């Protein structure tokens, strides 16, 4: 049997062959190519213009246009504004968003309310104390002393009550006369000797005072005060 060689194509040698391979120039085949190439317009790479030109031809007109638009629409906006501006009300409408905060404040308030209750209680106590103090005594007497002469002056002025004024004067005298009676009360002889006359005088005085009471019912407390003078 004859040995068979298996040949393979040497790719590196083939590559070198093709690298060195050149086709002879054929001018005829280029006639149509030259006509086509003459119509070709080369792609000029895009060149950005200078910044000065950009500003001059683009920036300034655009800026002027923007300013004009802003002025035009701003003027229209101002024109279309209503005379009254209820916008503040609309602003207050948006406030309910903050309502939870106010509620929190209200919730935080109760502790002071407790304090106020305590203070109220103290105030009530103080008021009670204040009320009790005038009941005790003398300032009321001073007021009553002042009231009496006004009543007396008023009585003097009133022509219809002249008899009452005349009756009051003997009352004071009767009181002054009673002082020796009280002094003499310790002596048993004077008491026993003239009790009827004194009783009559007292009756007259009491009658006079009762008449005064009837004429001036507001002066009911005067009976206590007058004898002290």
């Amino acid at each position, binding site marked *: 049997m004859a040995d*068979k*060689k*298996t*040949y*393979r*194509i*040497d*790719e590196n*040698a*083939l*590559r070198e*062959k*093709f*690298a060195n*391979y*050149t*086709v*002879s*120039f054929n001018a005829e*085949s*280029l006639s*149509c*190519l*030259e006509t*086509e*190439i*003459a119509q*070709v*317009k*080369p*792609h*000029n*790479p895009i060149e950005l213009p200078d910044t000065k030109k950009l500003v001059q031809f683009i920036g300034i007109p655009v800026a002027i246009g923007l300013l004009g638009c802003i002025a035009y629409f701003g003027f229209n906006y101002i024109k279309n504004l209503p005379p009254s501006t209820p916008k503040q009300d609309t602003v207050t409408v948006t406030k309910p968003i903050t309502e939870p905060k106010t509620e929190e404040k209200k919730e935080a308030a109760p502790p002071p309310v407790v304090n106020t209750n305590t203070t109220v209680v103290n105030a009530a106590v103080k008021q009670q104390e204040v009320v009790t103090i005038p009941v005790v005594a003398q300032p009321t007497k001073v007021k009553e002393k002042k009231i009496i002469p006004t009543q007396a002056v008023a009585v003097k002025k009133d022509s219809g009550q002249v008899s009452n004024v005349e009756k009051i004067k003997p009352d004071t005298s009767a009181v002054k006369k009673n002082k020796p009676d009280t002094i003499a009360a310790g002596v048993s002889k004077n008491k026993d000797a003239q009790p009827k006359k004194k009783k009559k005088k007292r009756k007259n005085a009491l009658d006079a005072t009762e008449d005064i009471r009837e004429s001036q019912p507001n002066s009911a407390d005067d009976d206590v005060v007058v004898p002290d003078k």
Partner: protein
Amino acid sequence: MSRNEFIQACIKNDKTARHQLIEQHYGYLMGMCQRYAKNNEQADTFFNTAFIEVFKHLPEYNDTQDINEWIKKIFLHSLIHQLKSNRTEYYITTTTRVDERKVNTDLFQHAEEQDPNNLLVEDYIRALQKLPSSFRAMYNLHIIENFDLKKTCELLEINEESAKNTLERARNEFLKNVKLKMQGF
């Protein structure tokens, strides 16, 4: 005339400058187009279309770049795009079954082997042009242009598994075509 002035003249639609640029790069670029095309007529159209793309993108060229590599890169993308644009030729071949290659390779089991590396470059180009479009693109990019598999997948927009599969089939098909060429077919 410096290179920059030459490029600026081409940009300004100077006919002599353009003609000079085409003449300088025609040889290897046309050979490249012949490898990617299915025949010489299609290679001419590929070349014209790709060179138009070169003139379109000429203002983007930098002096720091190698002009040959820059034009070759534009040609490569243009050729792949032109191959893919013919969808019926490009995508139908990718759906053929891999098992067919076993049948094809069996044809050479009993034939006497010859060294496939002694052919002319034109014969290899003819063998490549007989490959389906997707196989031709894969073989050119990975074997001839020496791109790695990842870069090839990116250019052809396929995943690695299908790229490996396509590459294996393209190698077998190319070998078969070369052997057929050696036998005078």
